[in-house]
């Protein structure tokens, strides 16, 4: 880093000393162009993200392609696009309650989990970012370890715990179980955003006679709104993609779509078209959510707290 500081300083002095004549400016521009050719990236830089995105899209394209084919076509002839596009596979899903209920179940518990996680994480994150208290560092570390806990370790104990409370096969059971890794995550993300808000704002508000709840809702929340958005996004994401725990805790009434899919693969003689259509439909909510938060994603990652 020391070397970098030097170069910056050199750069500035050099700029200042340059006389503002037209000749010098042209010379400077030529120099800069030469430097750019040597130092900057080549013109083919766009190839890298393009190839990477093609690599990412290929398996998804194949899934979409399959979802518009009939089962005979999938198994019979190999083709890069559906010869006779059909939406029959999607109709199966939208008309059969055992299929579309899976989506509703998934969305119910994911939303419940996001709301619970962010709601309890808000005051805790505030406490971590503003106060020191007995055992704060240990507590923070302990929360972090839960983000790293392998779901496989918890699957069986969760089943027994929620059986004891009679909560098996309910949405709330899955929502609470997913709090295991989402609450620590939400606390972590929100703490980062809250620490970015100067403490003077709190103090001024208290002097102005705001009570804590009023201050928190009226002044503080708008300031960290993007942080709440980022936290919601990641809670949604991790609850939506998790399956091991969700599958263990549900049997029929709250079964997530992803689990219904695997069951159909193994049981009903491999209806590839419907399977592909169901897969495509599980990708859509994620794509929609990303589109809405696209401007915040980089910011959320920038905190390095995911």
């Amino acid at each position, binding site marked *: 880093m020391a070397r*970098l500081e030097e*170069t*910056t300083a050199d750069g500035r002095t050099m*700029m200042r000393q340059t006389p503002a004549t037209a000749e010098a400016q042209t010379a400077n521009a030529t120099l800069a162009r030469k*430097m*750019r050719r*040597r*130092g*900057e*990236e080549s013109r083919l830089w*766009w190839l890298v*993200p393009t190839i*990477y995105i093609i*690599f990412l*899209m*290929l*398996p*998804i394209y*194949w*899934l979409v392609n399959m979802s518009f084919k009939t089962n005979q076509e999938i*198994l019979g002839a190999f083709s890069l696009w559906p010869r006779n596009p059909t939406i029959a596979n999607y109709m199966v899903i939208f008309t059969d309650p055992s299929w579309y209920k899976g989506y509703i179940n998934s969305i119910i518990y994911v939303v419940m989990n996001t709301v*619970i996680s962010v709601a*309890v*994480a808000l005051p*805790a994150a505030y406490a*971590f970012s*503003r*106060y*020191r*208290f007995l055992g704060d560092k240990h507590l923070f570390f302990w*929360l972090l*370890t839960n983000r790293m*806990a*392998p779901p*496989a370790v*918890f699957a*069986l*104990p969760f089943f*027994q715990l929620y059986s004891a409370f009679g909560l098996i096969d309910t949405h709330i059971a899955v929502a609470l179980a997913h*709090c*295991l890794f989402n*609450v*620590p995550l939400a606390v972590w993300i929100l703490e980062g955003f809250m620490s970015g808000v100067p403490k003077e704002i709190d103090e001024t508000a208290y002097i102005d006679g705001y009570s804590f709840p009023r201050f928190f809702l009226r002044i503080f929340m708008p300031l960290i709104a993007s942080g709440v958005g980022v936290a919601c996004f990641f809670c949604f994401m991790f609850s*939506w*993609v*998790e*399956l*091991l725990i969700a599958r263990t805790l549900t049997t029929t009434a709250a079964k997530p779509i*992803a689990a219904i*899919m695997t069951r159909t693969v193994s049981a009903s003689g491999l209806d590839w078209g419907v*399977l592909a259509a169901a*897969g495509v439909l*599980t990708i859509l909510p994620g794509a929609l959510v*990303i589109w809405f938060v696209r*401007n915040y994603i*980089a910011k959320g*990652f*920038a905190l*390095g707290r*995911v």
Partner: protein
Amino acid sequence: MDRTWNNKAWFMVLPVLLLVAFSAVIPLMTVVNYSVQDTFGNNVFFWAGSEWFEEILHSDRFWEAMGRNLVFSAVILVIEIPLGIFIALNMPKKGWGVPVCLVLMALPLLIPWNVVGTIWQVFGRVDIGLLGYSLRSLGFDYNYVNDPFDAWVTVIVMDVWHWTSLVVLLCYAGLVSIPDAYYQAAKIDGASRWAIFRYIQLPKMNRVLLIAVLLRFMDSFMIYTEPFVVTGGGPGNTTTFLSIDLVKLAIGEFNLGEAAAMSIVYFLIIMLLSWVFYTVMTAYDAER
């Protein structure tokens, strides 16, 4: 930021504490319970001491799964981290390309894990999958169901497909936070592309890279759903990683004592690694 000492802040942390205690401590206690007891059935348990732990630590099966998992994590890191940095360096900096790249790259991260498995299971099939069919037509003897090497390649490529974007996004976030002045200074100095990377971009990405390495290590160390859907741990046991083995032991064979002991060993390893990570992170933050 200097924080005031106030023990009343505990009340704000209380909801989180109760919730996480309910969903983490109670289940863990059940695991501890099982790990030190044995049963002959009928819900009658007796004290077994450290028997299960000795058994698990002396079982080849556990160490083999551990070895496979470590090799898997190492391969994943070696591929994904440099690839992620390389792609992040070549991302567009402004204009319409930025949101398009971000959204398309983040897409695999939001696909449910077993759907990721299903996508690749179909994609790699030699009869109906694009990848398997193309490889076959090109004359490769590719079959991830029977051939351990092909199964490994499939699982690794799948993980690269699934998670490299996380590294890309993290690095990209680190890169966009570098002020333009740094690049201008480097340009005037005539710094080479490598020098810019080595002395400007890499130091700025240090922190996010640390997180990327840790997250990728942790998540690949507890990977379950994706390889399970694609290969089911096979052929044979060649893609049976720790989590798959654990679930097999606990739910498949209902060998609760051994599974519980394994869970604890597994969890302690993760805990140790988290601690190292946390210490390094806080030390790094304090330095700045």
